[in-house]
């Protein structure tokens, strides 16, 4: 049934298409140029990223080194859950963290129902939208990004990209090499809904909180500037 339908549909599509060859089609597409991107809220990519994360109702911490990152993670978990436990994916960047420094007790693997907090390693961050990007697979189970009450993200500022086009330029070599990630997840905020009387509520199905720990040289001054940008938005009635 489906193969007959395929033939019928393909024939109709062919009949309605221009019938150009692959080279002509690719050349026409290449000639269309690139899409305009959103202006960044600051010329510094890191500040722009942080401002957009805050606009997306995310929260941020700055860690000077890995030990400090673990301590910040420990404080966050304790503050929200009076616990020291978290679940982390099998990403080597997470396995190599000095967990004892923060008194954190990680379990590596996938989140089970009822486990309230997970930590994921973001491959990239996108300044244009304030999104963190995960390649889901062996090291990054997708449910760790979706099931917990609070989603913690470790991101190196050296992996910040200006826009979504740059993201594809990073991913394409992996895809072309034949090792396509099962999923590419861009997460730009906590799970949210406005389906009831258009009132925004966080934690529709997934994390109620989305907290990013930036490593690799971000500064508290940059974070202050990002906060000032968002405060200015609020004053002007913007986003």
């Amino acid at each position: 049934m489906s193969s007959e339908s395929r033939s019928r549909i393909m024939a109709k599509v062919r009949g309605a298409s221009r019938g150009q060859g692959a080279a002509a089609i690719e050349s026409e597409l290449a000639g269309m140029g690139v899409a305009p991107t959103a202006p960044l809220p600051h010329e510094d990519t890191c500040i722009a990223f942080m401002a957009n994360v805050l606009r997306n109702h995310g929260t941020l911490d700055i860690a000077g080194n890995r030990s400090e990152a673990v301590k910040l993670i420990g404080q966050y978990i304790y503050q929200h859950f009076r616990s020291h436990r978290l679940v982390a994916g099998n990403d080597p960047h997470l396995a190599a963290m000095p967990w004892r420094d923060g008194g954190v007790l990680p379990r590596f693997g996938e989140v089970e129902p009822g486990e309230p907090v997970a930590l994921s390693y973001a491959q990239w961050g996108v300044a244009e939208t304030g999104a963190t990007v995960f390649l889901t697979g062996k090291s990054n189970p997708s449910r760790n990004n979706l099931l917990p009450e609070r989603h913690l993200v470790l991101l190196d500022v050296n992996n910040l990209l200006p826009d979504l086009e740059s993201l594809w330029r990073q991913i394409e070599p992996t895809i072309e090499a034949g090792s396509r990630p099962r999923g590419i997840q861009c997460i730009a905020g906590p799970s949210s809904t406005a389906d009831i009387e258009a009132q925004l509520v966080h934690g529709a199905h997934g994390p109620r909180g989305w907290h990013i720990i930036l490593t690799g040289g971000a500064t508290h001054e940059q974070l202050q500037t990002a906060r000032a940008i968002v405060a200015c938005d609020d004053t002007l009635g913007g986003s």
Partner: protein
Amino acid sequence: MELQSQHFREKAADALADSAAVAQRDKIAQFTPIIRDAAMQEFGSFEALRKHIKRIRQHSLDNLDYYLARFELEATNNGNQVHYADTPDEMNSIVLDICQQHGAHRVAKGKSMVTEETALNDYLQRGGLEVVETDLGEYIIQQAGETPSHIVAPALHKSKQEIRELFLEKHALGERALETTEDLVDEARSVLRETFLKADVGIIGSNALIAENGYSMLVTNEGNGDLCANLPSVLIICTTLDRILPRGEDATAMQRLLARSTTGQAQTSYTSFYSGPRREGELDGPLETHIVLLDNQRTDILASDYKEMLQCIRCGTCLNHCPVFAATGGHSYGWVYSGPMGSILTPLLTSLETSEALPNACTSCGRCGEVCPADIPLPDLLRDLRHEQYQQKMTAPRWRVGLKLHAWLAVRPSLYQFLTAMLTTVLHRLGRKKGSFSQLPFAAGWTSVRDFPAPQSGTFMQQYKARTKADE
């Protein structure tokens, strides 16, 4: 979903009589354009983005044979099974077969207008499956036994109080207050969490299919679609041929347009790209993935003068800016798609005869065409459908006579000016005292709901001539 578009006039009259619902729709019609305009202005080169996406979408549709074959090849190489369905019934049957092959009992569904179009839920339920909508809005209307009133926000017609009563009636969770919106969201969260964890099959739609790599893009804020895509052991993506775009960057560029037009966001909370099933050694993800591509008249549209309608990105912007939609609400349209895009798609996907009222549910204000992020000439397509109705003699005889008379008069400017000047003068004199008419011959449709204002003075042409003469 059963077609009820033939009852548009009656449903619209009922909707207008419900003053609370009218007030709620007014509120939505006021704030949705504001958030879209703010996002558009902040972006700056929104018009350039809109033109770029239009060119890409047109290019994709012009070369759909190439891109469809490419997508099928790449998606298959990624480990998906790609199916084609000519008709809604065929899509439903393919999905039910997959579920039955896996001995499935429970299905968790993400929001999908395509499956509303095919009435998939009813079909699967008749096949013995338990189907739960997981988008909060869709879940609410499923519990209420209703249909979506808006393609993006399906339950916006329901008040918090109505939802509270619905949850208290449907959920056997004991005594609780559910006083705030947060309480209601939490309630749905706890019920639906079990659905995600127990579902055998997840069904989602797709915002874009990427030809160069076989990925499928899903855009949500709730994350329910991603839970459906990752937790159950079988994933079925139900979508249509026109979602195909050439490259990943085209999909994210379209997302830029979609998120700003719909919710005013730069990017929604979750934008995911799925390639296929779980690979060896992976801890989660579906073991099997299927992509079902529905035609349902779309290849006919592709070959027709309405081809531009296939550029629609399902953002709901035209609904949010349409005065008829704001006044009558989505349910009046009687099918899956409402507002201007629905008034075009419904006749094209069903029949012009059964949805005859929809292309006429238009004030010709042109707002939908101005705001459409895909730059679809919606007012032109609506007019073309009306023209088709006229040619096929579907238009009522008195309207046909009226239109013929108008066409005859419109090409005789001197006579036209003379007659309109005469009519204006008569109405001006008769209505001078009161300033309006509560009754007028041949205008009962107008005067039954509002007064007709009396002309203040002469026609535009009379005034123009008088001023030109005075200037000389």
